[in-house]
């Protein structure tokens, strides 16, 4: 369709939008920039008036302290173990549960009640569950072990995964699913060949969100870890001392801790492309 006038209008609108978004993004990310800059400044200069935006006078002191004294790699390793494994568990268990709810014949009432019960588990303030969960794991002698942390995180994220993935599954056009079933696909094939590829953007989004939730989880990380499994949020909370705040070091740790997440997000970007998947399947 060749409509020159509309096209240039569209281009103008697009340029305007790009500008608006660019300005918004810069303002929106200002606090992140501020955190970054503070991490590269010596502690004594971390706060001054007027706020110093220019990337001058940058030093690596804070990072040196963080790497040498705070053994941040060890914390990153622990966080990675706990987060990645719990994400994998949540995804697998959650996706097959969501698949069941979305594509198999359920009595409407049963399905609705189950789904609502699942989401209601997320309502309980985690603080109230902190002590009993600690007691469960203490009884099982699992305090300060990775399985405890992974189980806890899987538990938290599962209802979230099930609901979101269920939603993405339900949004698939009925015809495609039905066509697959009529063609004699087994459920397994349907799942792997049809459903997952078509809902990849959604599932990847859920993966990212679940990873972030586990990566930044603080309350249970503090309670369930001790000598061997402390994760990054525990390290960060260690800076919240009543005696004073080391702005530079906290910023350094903060910046370092978002890098793995950004890596995961970038990795996921490749899968969130619209339109491509539909054409391929057709």
């Amino acid at each position, binding site marked *: 369709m060749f409509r020159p006038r509309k096209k240039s209008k569209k281009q103008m609108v697009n340029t305007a939008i790009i500008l608006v978004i660019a300005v918004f993004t810069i303002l929106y990310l200002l606090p992140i920039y501020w955190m970054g800059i503070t991490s590269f400044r010596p502690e004594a200069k971390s706060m001054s008036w007027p706020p110093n935006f220019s990337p001058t006078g940058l030093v690596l002191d804070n990072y040196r302290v963080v790497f040498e004294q705070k053994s941040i790699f060890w914390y990153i390793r622990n966080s990675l173990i706990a987060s990645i494994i719990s994400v994998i568990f949540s995804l697998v268990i959650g996706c097959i549960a969501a698949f069941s709810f979305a594509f198999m014949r359920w009595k409407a009432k049963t399905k609705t009640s189950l789904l609502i019960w699942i989401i209601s588990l997320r309502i309980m303030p985690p603080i109230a569950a902190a002590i009993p969960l600690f007691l469960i794991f203490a009884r099982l002698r699992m305090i300060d072990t990775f399985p405890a942390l992974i189980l806890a995180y899987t538990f938290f994220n599962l209802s979230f995964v099930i609901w979101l993935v269920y939603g993405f599954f339900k949004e698939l056009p009925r015809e495609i699913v039905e066509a697959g079933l009529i063609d004699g696909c087994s459920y397994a094939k349907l799942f792997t060949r049809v459903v997952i590829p078509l809902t990849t953007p959604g599932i990847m989004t859920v993966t990212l969100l679940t990873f972030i939730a586990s990566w930044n989880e603080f*309350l249970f990380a503090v309670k369930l870890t001790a000598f061997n499994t402390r994760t990054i949020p525990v390290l960060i909370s260690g800076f919240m001392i009543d005696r004073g705040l080391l702005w530079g070091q906290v910023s350094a740790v903060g910046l370092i801790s978002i890098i793995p997440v950004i890596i995961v997000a970038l990795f996921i970007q490749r899968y969130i492309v619209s339109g491509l998947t539909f054409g391929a399947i057709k």
Partner: protein
Amino acid sequence: MIEKRLKYYLILPALIIFLGLAIYPLFFALRGSFFIWRYGMPAQFVGLKNYIDLFKSSFAWNALQNTIIYVVLAVFLELIIGLVLAVLMNRELGFFRPVVRTALTIPMFVSPIVVGIIWRMIYNPHYGLFNWLLGTQGFAPTGNEYALFFVVLADVWQWTPFMYVIILAALQSIPPEILEAGEIDGTTGWQKFIHITLPSISYAIVIALTLRFMDATKALDLIYTLTYGGPGGGTETIGFLIFRTAFNDLNIGSATSFAIIFTVVMGILITRFLGWLNRRFEIV
């Protein structure tokens, strides 16, 4: 008949985890709420005293009020901004897109504790960005009666990407045929949006809204580092109050009773809301 059993088998792992780790805490909380129980000391059975005290507690009502303001404001703002961003970013904008797309999600990656610390720096009355942007000096956003609104601001900053990411994924999952159908009919962009795009992503919006709503009511990490409930309880939300009662006071009876009332009320609200949505729009 494999199918009949299969659907149960598929949800079994999830159910095992839920039942295994949810039942005891629920039972523990329920039982604990009927005792005056200071963790570490013997408990005394007092029936409904904790619940009655809760209704008489000015701290609890204050927390309720703060929570309602916080949640309504934060979730509403996050939804609007997230929706606008998602729609804008869904357009064809060339190379620009992947970079900005990921960039916009970064605030969500940062640990809420760190977010609280950053905003504490920003809100500093004498050295903070906030004062500098406003051109003032000595204004303490978290030191006056309106501290709650500034905490909401920090929350919106952090969680808008949540809405944005979910809505964007939903937008990208809309089969192109549906969108094209709209174009053929010659409808305007705005109409197309309201009648075709929006309904297609309605499920995503509802679920994002519900999830965010539930998380906001329990909000804790941000408040813990930004204001610690201050000034004078001005930013104490239900989540924070329960935390303070359980962690600092070790007052298990009081904390669990509050948690239970909260869970029950929220559970009813959400069930009713989802039920209503389901009847009107067939969401579930």
